[in-house]
């Protein structure tokens, strides 16, 4: 059976999810549902089941931190923001990504 494009690029998407999550968090303080909402219309749409373990891993690596805030509706929420280490890491990934795109564009010219 032929792989659908969706399955074919699974590995790429998986690898890039952390990058995109960091980018979203870099825009300001966000909570998990914000991140999911921004990913939803894209190819990277995912659920809490994937995002929470990822956020927890990034926090352990010192890339982000969170703060509890009360919300008008329901229980308090965790708001995430990047640490200096997380911002440095994001800049690095961003630079690498640009280099990668440049390579892809020029390789066959």
């Amino acid at each position: 059976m032929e792989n659908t494009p969706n399955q074919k690029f699974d590995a790429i998407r998986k690898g890039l999810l952390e990058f995109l999550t960091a980018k979203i968090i870099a825009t300001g303080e966000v909570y998990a549902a914000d991140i999911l909402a921004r990913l939803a219309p894209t190819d990277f749409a995912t659920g809490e089941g994937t995002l929470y373990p990822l956020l927890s891993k990034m926090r352990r690596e010192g890339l982000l931190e969170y703060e509890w805030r009360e919300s008008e509706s329901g229980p308090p929420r965790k708001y995430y923001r990047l640490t200096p280490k997380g911002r440095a890491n994001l800049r690095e990934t961003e630079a690498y990504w640009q280099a990668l795109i440049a390579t892809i564009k020029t390789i066959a010219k």
Partner: protein
Amino acid sequence: MNKVVTISLAGRAYELEEAGYDALRRYLDSARAALSGDPDLEEIMRDLEAAIAEKLSARMRPGENVARGGDVEAALAEMGPVGGKAPEGAAHAQSGTPKKLYRLPEAGWIWGVCAGLAAYFDIDVTLVRIAFVALAILTGGGFFLAYFLMVILIPVATTPEERSAAYGASTITAQTLIENARKGYEEGMRAWQKWETVGKAEWKAHKAEMKRQAKQQRRAWKHQGRAWQEYGYSYYPHRTPTVAEELVHVAILAAVVWAVYTYIPGTQPFLDHLWALIERGWQWIFAQIAR
């Protein structure tokens, strides 16, 4: 007719149809299995539960806590499968949570020690009770102390996951019991060695992490406590004890006090003193009434 199960998710009560409850339990069990070994397992599980709770609430009318057919399944589909490390085949995810020893007050007569033990060793609870009473008689009441100790030492199963962990997903064999005990011991020894050899910076980071986790735990308790205040304890499946059971409670408490008094040297003067105080209190009250 559908059976309805009441559960507590992130400190809120929800009523689920049996099919929805089963789906939820499967989801949480496989999440736990997929994340096993993750140092933040408990925290992620709490976050996942809170997210499911939020999704369920969004599907209900305000002030209602009944999930209609398909609500749970839809919420779980939105959550998506839980990642973490790559699952080692479907069999791994299906093995469910490891069995843990919990007290099961709602299944038991007094504080659920016997029920918890029975669930853990997969034997009839009546046999455990008979064994307890027999041992209590043989030791002249001394074994009541063991019960009392177990009440203090064994944690109560309050969440649905804990209750399912108390019964275990599969029957546990003596072999796995021994293996678990050995694994626990080895882990303890490793941790101990690590403590002795860690550098100062690592130790500091470890301490900070422990502190963070403790804070997180406290927060969760606080939130749970507030939910209890708001909704009352009623949504934890709990039946009111009958008069006979209350009498058993009182009898056992009396037996425990008597056993402590008789068997633990040094407590006698203290309890005598306490009793004298109570007596004096009574006398004072009677004197006030008589006047």
